[in-house]
């Protein structure tokens, strides 16, 4: 921005104004048209919150954490061998290319789309949530973990190799000891993200607290929705705190 001429700044401002005008036109974003009475009745419906649903909310929060945990774990178990195959320099190039391609495909599809696919296929909320998280995250973790191995220092690998040991020993003793803290830090970060994602997946029917929120919304029970929302807030704050704690331990 700095150092541009007045002429260029004028063009820039014009482009920005045009972009705003076009976006308002296509989205119909017009505050004058808002129906504030609907907002008023919605807010009024939320108070007082109906705390009788609290036990259910807590149970569903637990379910969301469970979905996130199993989804992350499943992704990690699958990504461990896949990431070794995907890392450059360990296995023949064609294997690595194949695995990297498959991983890119898995993470290109958003979790919510995976969840809808699994819901259609299994008709089971929680399982769809777990599988959706696993399917997307196996793609992410495969890539992240392979990058860790590729960054591992060559020295220890050469030392193991030069004793006459084979590839398995080189991976196990030459690469993994250095990589382990980095792998765990990625894993916990994904778990933290997945707790948040799992609440959203519930909104399309894949189990947990999000699912409860959808249910109360469809029944117009806004006083219960407020409790659901507070539950989600607590969950996200908890996962943030957990992530911060783990990162401090690992790094």
């Amino acid at each position: 921005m700095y150092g541009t001429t007045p002429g260029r700044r004028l063009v820039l401002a014009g482009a920005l104004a045009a972009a705003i005008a076009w976006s308002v036109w296509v989205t119909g974003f017009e505050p004058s048209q808002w129906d504030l009475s609907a907002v008023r009745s919605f807010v009024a419906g939320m108070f007082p919150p109906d705390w009788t649903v609290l036990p259910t909310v807590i149970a569903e929060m637990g379910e969301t954490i469970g979905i996130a945990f199993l989804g992350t774990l499943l992704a990690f178990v699958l990504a461990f061998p896949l990431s070794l195959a995907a890392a450059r320099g360990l296995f023949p190039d064609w294997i690595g290319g194949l695995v990297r391609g498959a991983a890119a495909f898995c993470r290109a599809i958003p979790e919510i789309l995976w969840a809808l696919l699994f819901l259609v296929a299994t008709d089971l909320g929680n399982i769809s949530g777990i599988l959706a998280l696993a399917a997307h995250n196996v793609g992410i973790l495969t890539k992240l973990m392979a990058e860790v191995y590729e960054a591992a220092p060559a020295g220890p690998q050469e030392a193991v190799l030069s004793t006459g040991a084979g590839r398995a020993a080189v991976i196990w003793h030459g690469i993994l000891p250095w990589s382990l803290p980095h792998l765990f830090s990625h894993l916990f970060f994904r778990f933290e993200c997945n707790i948040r994602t799992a609440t959203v997946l519930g909104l399309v029917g894949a189990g947990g607290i999000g699912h409860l929120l959808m249910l109360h919304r469809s029944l117009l029970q806004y006083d219960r929705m407020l409790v659901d929302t507070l539950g989600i807030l607590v969950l996200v704050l908890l996962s943030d705190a957990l992530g911060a704690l783990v990162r401090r331990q690992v790094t």
Partner: protein
Amino acid sequence: MIELEGITHRYREGQPPALDGVSLVIGAGERVALLGPSGAGKSTLLRCITGLVRPTQGVVRFRGRPVTGASPGELRAIRKEIGVIFQEYHLIEPYTALGNVLVGRFGHLPLWRVLLGLFPRADRELARRALAQVGLADQAQVPVRRLSGGQRQRVAVARALVQGGGVILGDEPVSNLDPATARMVLELLCEGNRREGTTLVLSLHAPELALEFCDRIVVLRAGRVVLDRPAREVTPGDLAAAYGLRAPASGAPGAPPG
């Protein structure tokens, strides 16, 4: 035992070669010192012998078997017989000193033992003895990242010792040690040479140590062998000439700078 035939190696096309037509035959039980200024190609030469570097041209043979072009299985069998002390040690940082020394036994053990880290008692004792020999008996259980530079170097020496392959390639194995400890380590390597006939190829920066502990001096300069002579026949003037310096006027030994 080790035969190098016309070895030329270029790390990058268009750059001057790190090794330029090196031919060398090293017999069993020899103690060869590899000298030469920094960047002369000493490390590259040692790495060619174990197949960590595949030379652009030439043939390397180990006990009559070709190293260049060996299958992965043959290469493993060859590497098992060659203990290497790396210039930068190449230790596994999170492991203890003992754990690092035991890596030297990997080539002799079945895969399940290597992966589970379950070493036979005899191997553990061998590793402990090697640590004691390099003066680190008390540091056996200390993670190597908490050791000093010289202590780490001695762990690397112990790892090569327990491999027991009959050959040790040392890439500046005493570069980080005080004079007394350096002599102790070289004495240890020579003892293996005297008692078991271990072949030693050691790259060194200090000519006086080379003359004292080795029986053959090979000097590399810009990737070529410029001197190859029995140690007792080498004069300070030879070394100065090989390093590309004028013979010192005083004729003092050890004149070439490290």
